[in-house]
C-alpha cells in the first residue's frame, strides 16, 4: 500500500469522527431533527471494509450511515446538507440522517427498518449475477438485526442462489439498550452462518488493518463465485444508540475500556510506530479535516431549503 493510501484511511476515519461530533452539536442546537445515530467508535469498520471494495461493488447499510456514506465517497458537505434537510443534501433533504444514498457511487443507502435491507441486498446481488457483473454486494447491519426474520430469509436465499453478497455484521455489543446475549441465541454472531452452511469469519473492528485484510479475503472469495460470506466485526459505539439515549444499560467504565482501544488511536500508533507517517503529518490531517468540516457546516447552513413543490416530486417516476 502506498503512503498516501495509508494517510487516506486515517483521513477518512478522522473525517467521520469530526463530522459526527459536529452533527451532535448541531442536533443539540436543534438544527438537525429526527433521529441521529452516530458512528463514533466504529470508524475502522466501514473505512477498512470499503477501502478494499471495487467500484463495481455495491454498498448498502442501515440507518447508522454517515460514516459509510463518507467512505463511499460522499462529501462531508453533502452529508451535512442532508442532515440539515437542505436541497443540496445527498437525498435532497427528503431522507435525513437515516436515509443517505448516492447510486452513482454505488452506495444504495441508509435503511431505517431493522433488517429490511438484507433482502434488498440479496436482490442487488441477484441483479449482478443475472447481468454477469463481477461486483459483490456489501451489506452491513447490526447485531440486533440478526434476530429479525428478514435476516434469515435473506441469508438463506443468498446461499440457495449462491449470490455474490458479503454479509457484514457490525457487532457493537448492543441493539439499542439490549446486550447481544439478551437478544440472540448465540453471542458469537458468526455462528448463525453455520445454520446456512455459509463461510464466515470474525475480526477485531477496532483495528482497521485487520478489518481491511479480513474484508479483502472475504471479497475475493465471494467474487471468485464461491457464494456469500458472513463476516462478523467486533466493535463498539461510544455514544448512545441515538441522541437522547438514557444509557441505563451500561456502565461508563465499560465505555472507557473500549475507548482505550480507540480505532483512530490504534491506527495512529500503527502509522507512527511503523514510521509510515509522523505525528506532525497526522496532526496536519486533523486540522485539515477540522477546516473541511467547518466548510461543510457553512455550506449546509448556507444551502437553500427544498422548494415547496419538492413535496410532490418523486412520489412516482411517471405522474
Amino acid at each position, binding site marked *: 500500500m502506498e503512503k498516501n493510501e495509508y494517510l487516506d484511511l486515517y483521513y477518512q476515519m478522522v473525517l467521520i469522527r469530526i463530522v459526527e461530533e459536529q452533527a451532535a452539536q448541531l442536533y443539540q442546537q436543534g438544527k438537525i431533527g429526527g433521529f441521529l445515530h452516530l458512528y463514533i467508535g466504529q470508524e475502522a469498520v466501514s473505512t477498512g471494509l470499503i477501502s478494499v471494495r471495487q467500484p463495481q461493488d455495491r454498498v448498502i447499510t442501515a440507518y447508522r450511515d454517515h460514516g459509510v456514506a463518507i467512505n463511499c465517497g460522499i462529501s462531508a458537505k453533502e452529508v451535512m446538507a442532508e442532515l440539515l434537510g437542505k436541497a443540496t443534501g445527498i437525498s435532497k433533504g427528503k431522507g435525513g440522517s437515516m436515509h443517505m444514498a448516492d447510486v452513482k457511487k454505488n452506495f*444504495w443507502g441508509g*435503511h431505517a427498518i431493522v433488517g429490511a435491507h438484507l433482502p434488498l441486498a440479496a436482490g442487488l446481488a441477484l*441483479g449482478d449475477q443475472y447481468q454477469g457483473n463481477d461486483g459483490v454486494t456489501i451489506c452491513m447491519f447490526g447485531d440486533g438485526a440478526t434476530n429479525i426474520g428478514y435476516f434469515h430469509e435473506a441469508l438463506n436465499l443468498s446461499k440457495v442462489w449462491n449470490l455474490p453478497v458479503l454479509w457484514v455484521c457490525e457487532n457493537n455489543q448492543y441493539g439499542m439498550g439490549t446486550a447481544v446475549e439478551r437478544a440472540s441465541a448465540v453471542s458469537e454472531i458468526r455462528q448463525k452462518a453455520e445454520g446456512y452452511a455459509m463461510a464466515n469469519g470474525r475480526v477485531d473492528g477496532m483495528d482497521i488493518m485487520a478489518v481491511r485484510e479480513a474484508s479483502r479475503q472475504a471479497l475475493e472469495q465471494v467474487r471468485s463465485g464461491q457464494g456469500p460470506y458472513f463476516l462478523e466485526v467486533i466493535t463498539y459505539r461510544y455514544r448512545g444508540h441515538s441522541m437522547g439515549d438514557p444509557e441505563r444499560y451500561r456502565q461508563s467504565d465499560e465505555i472507557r475500556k473500549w475507548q482505550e482501544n480507540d480505532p483512530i488511536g490504534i491506527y495512529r500508533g500503527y502509522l507512527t510506530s511503523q514510521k509510515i507517517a509522523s505525528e506532525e503529518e497526522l496532526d496536519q490531517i486533523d486540522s485539515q479535516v477540522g477546516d473541511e468540516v467547518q466548510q461543510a457546516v457553512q455550506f449546509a447552513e448556507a444551502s437553500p431549503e427544498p422548494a415547496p413543490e419538492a413535496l410532490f416530486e418523486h*412520489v412516482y417516476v411517471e405522474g
Partner: protein
Amino acid sequence: MSKITMREAISKALWEEMERDSKVFILGEEVGVWGGTYAVTKGFVDHFGPDWVRDTPIAEAAIVGAAIGAALTGLRPVAELMTINFAFSAMDHIVNEAAKLHYMFGGQLVLPVVIRTVSGGGRQLGATHSQTPDAIFAHFPGLKVVAPGTPEDAKGLLKSAIQSDDPVLFIEHATLYQVRGEVPDGDYTIPIGKSKIQRPGRDVTIVTYSKMLEISTKAAEQLSQEGIEVEIVDLRSLRPLDMEPVLESFKKTNRAVIVEEGWRSYGVGSEVAARIYEQAFDYVDAPIQRVAQEEVPLPYNRNLEQLALPQVEDVVRAVKEVL
C-alpha cells in the same frame, strides 16, 4: 380480437414482455416447475429457463425485497405472491420499501418492480386465505395498485405495469381466471390509472372493479329486464384512482352504488363515495349505496361464506334502493 380466458391473458402479457425485454424475469413460490398455483406461468420455465422463472423458498419478505433489489440494478422483476393473504408477510417491503425508496432518496432509486398477487374469497379457503384487502394497499402513496376485471384489461394493464418504472401491486382474482373475454390481437397496453365505463346505462351508476364487475354485470342484465339501465364504471386501478368517468356517469344518473368484495369499513366504497359527494354534491339525488362483504372473518362453510360475500341480489337490491 380473440376470446381468451383471464389466465391466458395474464399469461400472454408475461410471456410477451419477457420475449420483448430480457430484463424482465419472474420470481415467486412455485412459479417454475409447478407452473404457478393458478397455472399462470405454466410452460414458462421450459422456455425461459429456471433463472428467469425462478422458484423461491417460502419467504415472502425476501421475494419482494429481492425483487426490489434486482429492480434497483435495472432489471424488471415480476414477483408473484401466491395470494394477497401472504402479502401481509411482505407488508413492510411493499409499503415501507417499494412505496418509499424513490421518494425518500430524492428520486435516485428507481424500482421497476411488479408484484402480482391474488385476492378474493368464495372458494371455502377459510378466514386466512380468502381476503380481499385491496384497499389497505391503496392507502400508501408511492405504490400503484391495479386490479383488472376483464382479460383485455388484465393483459393491457399488466404490460403497462411491467413497462412502468414505478412499483405496481397487480391484484388478480382467484375466481376470475376462467372468465373469457375478447382481447385485441397483437401488442397493446392500457395506461394505468384510468377508470372505464364497461357498460353504458342511464339510470344508475355502479362503480366497481375486479370480480365484482362480473357480479355487477349480472345484476345489470337482470335489472335491464325490468327496464332499469345500469351504467358500470370499472375502476381498474385503486391508486391512482381516476374519478373522471365515475363523475361523468354520476352527473348523468345522479345515483350510484359501489360494489366491492372486501369488507365495507375503510374499504374502496367509502373512498369512492366520499369523493363523489365532494366532487358532484349538487348532482346527488339519493344516498349512495355500498355493497360489500359482511364484517366477519370469512368462514369455511359454503353457505356462511356465500352469505358474507356480495351477491347479484345484493347489487340488485342496492340499485333499487337508490332509485
